[in-house]
């Protein structure tokens, strides 16, 4: 199975880069992202209903190592990306067939991750970037390929950070999200007809590599420059 293993391993690397993207779609980013954001926040509350208690928790940031805050913010950025992707797909309603429930099911989980990490970071949380998925959220095939790539990437990103986390509690939370990303990766691969678990040991990806892969998608169209600590909180 080594040839097949090679092929499926390579797939996650290639899909994001290979997604055809003409770059012409840059329409009304502000409008789209504004709409998505409002809905996203609304959904986050629903999806993370069990977490409302955690949302009111005092921020851990003050007592947390700067490196842990940086890792959580890095994780938050990836969760924003995943959550926005599934949430937009659910809103557009174009994904059907055997994937019909995926945007709702995975969106709820990724929004719960966003809500929990934001709650843990409190005022130290980075703001959500603006995203443009270039139609991928309404194309069945591209949606699934991107989901495979995102979930493999999410698992690899958390894995590479696990041993860098100083706080035992943050590690416990991060590692318990990490394995859910891996479940998602297996799930999406199963739906895509590729081996859900391609090797006996999953490799992590360092931050630089993950950021390069995310950048190659052009899904992130604007990174907020100002941290939420110097801005009023979103009041909906």
């Amino acid at each position, binding site marked *: 199975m080594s040839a097949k293993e090679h092929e499926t391993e390579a797939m996650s690397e290639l899909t994001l880069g290979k997604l055809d993207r003409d770059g012409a779609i840059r329409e009304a980013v502000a409008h789209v992202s504004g709409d998505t954001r409002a809905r996203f926040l609304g959904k986050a509350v629903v999806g993370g209903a069990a977490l409302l208690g955690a949302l009111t928790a005092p921020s851990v940031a003050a007592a947390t190592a700067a490196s842990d805050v940086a890792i959580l913010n890095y994780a938050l950025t990836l969760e924003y990306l995943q959550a926005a992707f599934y949430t937009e797909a659910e809103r557009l309603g174009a994904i059907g067939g055997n994937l019909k429930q995926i945007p709702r099911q995975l969106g709820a989980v990724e929004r719960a991750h966003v809500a929990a990490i934001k709650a843990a970071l409190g005022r130290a949380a980075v703001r959500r970037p603006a995203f443009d998925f270039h139609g991928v959220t309404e194309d069945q095939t591209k949606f699934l390929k991107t989901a495979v790539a995102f979930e493999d990437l999410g698992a690899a990103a958390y894995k590479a950070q696990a041993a860098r986390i100083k706080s035992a509690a943050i590690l416990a939370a991060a590692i318990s999200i990490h394995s859910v990303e891996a*479940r998602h990766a297996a799930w999406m691969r199963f739906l895509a007809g590729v081996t859900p678990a391609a090797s*006996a040991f*999953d490799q992590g990806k360092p931050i630089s590599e993950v950021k390069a892969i995310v950048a190659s998608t052009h899904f992130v169209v604007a990174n907020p420059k100002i941290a939420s600590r110097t801005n009023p909180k979103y009041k909906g």
Partner: protein
Amino acid sequence: MSEARAPVDDHGGSDFDELELGIVAARADDSDASSRADFVARAVIASGALAAGGLLVTGFPRLAASAPSAAQDKNILDFALLLEYIEAGFYAEAFAKGKLSGELGDYVSIVRLHEQAHVAFLKSALGKEARKKPKLSFGETTSDPAKFTAAAIALEETMIGAYNGQAANLTKPTLAAAAKIVSVEARHAGWIRAIAGKNPAPNATDKPQTATQVQGAVNRTGFLQSS
């Protein structure tokens, strides 16, 4: 989740098992209403895997969560090795019996190799201190598709909870290695659940399990005849 205590408690791990970020038990989907531990018990019992005469294991290492150390790493890895022996034995027997076909057959033929590799890795890490392979008995769970599926889900999810539960007790280099294994167990869990038509990821997090909880789950399977 009434306890909204933030994880400001950052010292050592003496109370690690009690720590929660408030998200570890977060539920993203209400399709699965009971705890993971209960689920494991139910799945194994439903699978008929609760073999009469299975050894009740009391000889598990004490995994007191003190500050990570090389000695503690060995205890934890040896515990992990016992679990991997059970998984590897389970899939090896299912593969040898050859009663599973289609998607289950594909699953067994690939996953058995992963578990073998995990056993080999842990044995090599532990060297001469590695425990011996236990005596195992799987009954019909390695031949009956429904019983196999239920037992595989239970085993894989026990593994996830076990590794996640020990993460903060390991030294960083050992944690880095364990993290490469736990996500593969999670992929197996997602895969077998997908084959079974169950939600592959019913919760937003995979709650860490204490060694005691894992021990209980293993005991309920009845798979272990000696340790």
